[in-house]
């Protein structure tokens, strides 16, 4: 029985490079797909189905088996800890999760029970556990940089690639929680059904 192999990839900044990566190993998706509003497409051989979903939703698609493979930032994997196989670091889409605050703040001088605004409550909690401080995590869904300026939190724990947005909001990096790149992940059953082909993709991509 041959079934098509479904790949969930994140919309946004990882999508273009993902499609390029597949092109290099001769899996060709329509070149106009990035600009279209369609949510899925097939490669030229109709063997691979590509789903574009929100970056934070990639693990759910793969974990539940709606997709066999997924491409997702390590930041999302560490935050969600999904039950999937992690196959390869694809070394693109580099960024890091940092603790950032206003000038003249430092990790050492942060009070116990300091307030931390973040989209990454799990990773932030683990970080503060590791450094032996109790933090009060405030979960936000966006515009995290606004938080210290408005007094909502003392510091933020957020993703940064160039540091530009932080700078614009007068925030400085106090510490790096972890660095992140795009990773290839697989559904455990999809991995069994399509073992050879997934192993091949993973070795070449």
């Amino acid at each position, binding site marked *: *029985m041959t*079934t098509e192999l479904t790949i969930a990839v994140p919309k946004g900044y990882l999508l273009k490079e993902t499609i390029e990566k597949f092109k290099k190993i001769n899996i060709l998706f329509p070149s106009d797909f990035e600009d279209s509003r369609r949510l899925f497409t097939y490669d030229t051989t109709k063997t691979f189905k590509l789903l574009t979903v929100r970056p934070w939703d990639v693990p*759910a698609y793969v*974990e*539940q*088996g709606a997709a066999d493979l997924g491409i997702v930032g390590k930041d999302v994997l560490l935050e969600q800890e999904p*039950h*999937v*196989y*992690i*196959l*390869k*670091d694809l070394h693109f889409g580099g960024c890091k999760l940092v603790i950032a605050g206003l000038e003249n703040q430092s990790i050492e001088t942060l009070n116990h029970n300091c307030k931390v605004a973040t989209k990454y409550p799990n990773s932030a909690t683990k970080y503060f556990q590791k450094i032996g401080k109790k933090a009060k995590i405030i979960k936000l869904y966006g515009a995290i940089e606004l938080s210290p300026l408005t007094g909502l939190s003392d510091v933020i724990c957020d993703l940064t690639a160039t540091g530009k947005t932080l700078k614009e909001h007068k925030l400085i990096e106090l510490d790096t929680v972890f660095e992140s790149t795009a*990773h290839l992940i697989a*559904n*455990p*059953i*999809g991995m*069994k*059904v399509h*073992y050879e082909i*997934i*192993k091949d993709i*993973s070795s070449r991509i």
Partner: protein
Amino acid sequence: MSKHSTPQGIRDFLPDDTKRLNANMILLQKLFTEHGFNQIKTPTIEFAENLEKGLGPIQKKECIEFFDPAGNRLLLRPDNTTPIARTVASRMANQPTPIKLCYTEPIFKKSNKNHSDTEIFQAGCEIFGYSSTESIAEIISMCIRSLESLDIDDIGIDIGHVSFADGLPDTKKQALLQGDYIAYGEIPERGSNIESNTTAIDEIIPILTKTHPDTPFIINKGLVKGLHYYTGIIFEVYSKKYRTIIASGGQYDSLCSLFDNPLTAVGFAINLNDIGFSS
């Protein structure tokens, strides 16, 4: 509509669902009995210190735990095999071997963030005091027949062995267990023609392919289990349609000795929660 709900991970079985679940259980009980397995019932609640003998760190965290009035830690059984091993080792030690037992009972695990089932109905068989590879083949064969009788016809079986993890540093074992193949260093080898380097697997696959020519038996070097009690062959059955591991089992020759009565053992369990239901 009334909005009185059930806790996360706990579901009601309305009459149609109940009919389906019970029919599956009755069918399996009949099949097990026809093949010489006797039904056993162990208690839902046991002392934590007894059941924890068989559990790895991940399973311990998934247990639902509480206290009795004397302050003893109790668990809802997270697994059927350990309670049955305890019962056999402590109450049936004088019986002639092999002792063939079967069950259709639920196990209980904390629901995860994806609302996984807390109450998981299982059916399974165990052989205690077996002495040959044939008994391991008999267990795997029973498992396949059981699934066939439930009309699951798209299964594949991965066969592993605890020795596959021999000599690996603890970090690599953990990486395998978590499916982190970057940390492990490679995607584990898997295929029907790869070298198992394991006598038991080399013996068992020809027996199984003879009796079940249509079932793919695939050696998986990455198949390891979080349960501490496995001692030899481990197997895992998946269904393409259900997209899940629907049954698993293996050899656990040292579990009974943890209950002061050394007896070899091999068994399997099928998860019945999703079978036959359109989820």
